């Protein structure tokens, strides 16, 4: 341990220093409170053994300052008092001291106190390590809870959280945005004919194509079984439709053989897109826009699949 000894009496300080060093600890010795405070801020100190009465900054004030430090590390404080009063001891303990010793210091007492100090500082170290590990795990679990394990895209929980943020930011600063829902065509038939493992593989390939296609400001999510959602922020409906159609072309170009497909013999997607921009009469709530995109998706399916349909007409008609 690194032990800081603060005492204005040189002979007393020498005694403590000798005991500390004999026990194999590193001793930093200073002769007043201000120097002790400087040392505490500049280096990691495990144990502070400080005299109560020192010119300038005294023991209790030093205790208070140490406890006020914004640091992970714990400094175990032993306050050294004169024979006099128990009031002093009480004040010192309340100021943040862990233990106290009375003068004249007995080497044996210093030795035993340092054993307790080593135990306490090591426990504190463990607590810090546990806490850091817990914080790391919390971040990791939060990420996992919002990630789809199959495709590694964000999941539905994350979508609704993001839509909530989008709702608030749109209220504050009205800006255009659009939402697309993509659905793999005849996916149930695909699963039934080639099996679920191949089905999963197709989902992964489509997800990867979506992920590589969208811009940094757009976000893609796995919404349900074979449904994906893309949120286009700061994008008009027309722009989103263009992007969605490009994506549709990309998926078709993957040329994943699809025996059950009625259209082209390969895996395709149908897309419904809805958007909002300042001046629109309709509700700017992203959850509402998402519903409109879903209606448009049904329309795309009804019109023969492998196409992009916009909900704009339906929205303005309402």
């Amino acid at each position: 341990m690194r032990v800081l000894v603060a005492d204005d009496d040189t002979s007393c300080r020498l005694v403590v220093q000798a005991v500390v060093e004999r026990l194999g600890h590193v001793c930093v010795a200073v002769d007043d409170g201000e120097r002790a405070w400087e040392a505490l801020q500049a280096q990691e100190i495990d144990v502070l053994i400080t005299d109560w009465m020192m010119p300038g900054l005294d023991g209790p004030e030093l205790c208070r300052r140490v406890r006020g430090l914004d640091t992970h590390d714990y400094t175990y404080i032993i306050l050294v008092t004169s024979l006099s009063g128990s009031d002093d001891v009480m004040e010192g303990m309340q100021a943040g001291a862990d233990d106290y010793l009375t003068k004249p210091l007995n080497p044996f007492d210093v030795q035993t106190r340092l054993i307790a100090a080593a135990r306490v500082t090591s426990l504190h170290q463990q607590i810090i390590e546990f806490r850091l590990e817990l914080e790391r795990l919390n971040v990791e679990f939060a990420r996992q809870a919002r990630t789809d394990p199959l495709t590694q895209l964000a999941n539905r929980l994350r979508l609704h959280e993001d839509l909530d943020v989008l709702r608030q930011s749109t209220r504050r600063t009205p800006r255009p945005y659009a939402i697309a829902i993509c659905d793999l065509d005849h996916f149930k038939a695909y699963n039934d004919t080639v099996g679920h493992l191949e089905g999963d593989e197709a989902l992964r390939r489509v997800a990867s194509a979506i992920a590589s296609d969208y811009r940094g400001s757009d976000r893609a999510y796995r919404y349900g079984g074979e449904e994906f959602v893309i949120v286009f922020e700061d994008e008009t409906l027309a722009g989103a439709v263009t992007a969605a159609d490009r994506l549709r072309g990309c998926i078709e170009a993957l040329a994943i053989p699809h025996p059950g497909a009625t259209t082209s013999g390969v895996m395709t997607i149908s897309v419904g897109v809805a958007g909002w921009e300042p001046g629109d009469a309709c509700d700017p709530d992203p959850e509402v826009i998402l519903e409109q995109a879903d209606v448009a998706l049904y329309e795309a399916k009804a019109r023969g699949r492998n196409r992009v349909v916009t909900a704009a007409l339906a929205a303005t008609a309402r």
Partner: protein
Amino acid sequence: MGSADQTLDPGRFEMLRELDDGDGEFIGTIVREFEADARRQVAAMAQALAADDAPAFERAAHALKGAAANLGAESLAEMCERLQTLGRAGTIDAGAGLVGEVDTELGRVLDALRQVMAGV
């Protein structure tokens, strides 16, 4: 009668000597520092007395008390404790005689230390 015995507590000194590597360097340093510090505090007490500065008087008495107790100079520590109490009460003129006694006792302590040191 007991005061001669309490000039230097042999047990305390023995304890300090156990911290020495055996070359007497540690004990030598402690005694040297004690002497310098003690003379400084006695001078500070006399000065405070002349200036009627009770807080300074109390501080010096407190400091010497700690240093004396550390070396096992029990009588000296007790005298300083009494002076410290006077300082706190603000009645330091009552301690005028005691300061002289402290100086005399300090001389005895230093003599005793030199004697035991010679035996190291």
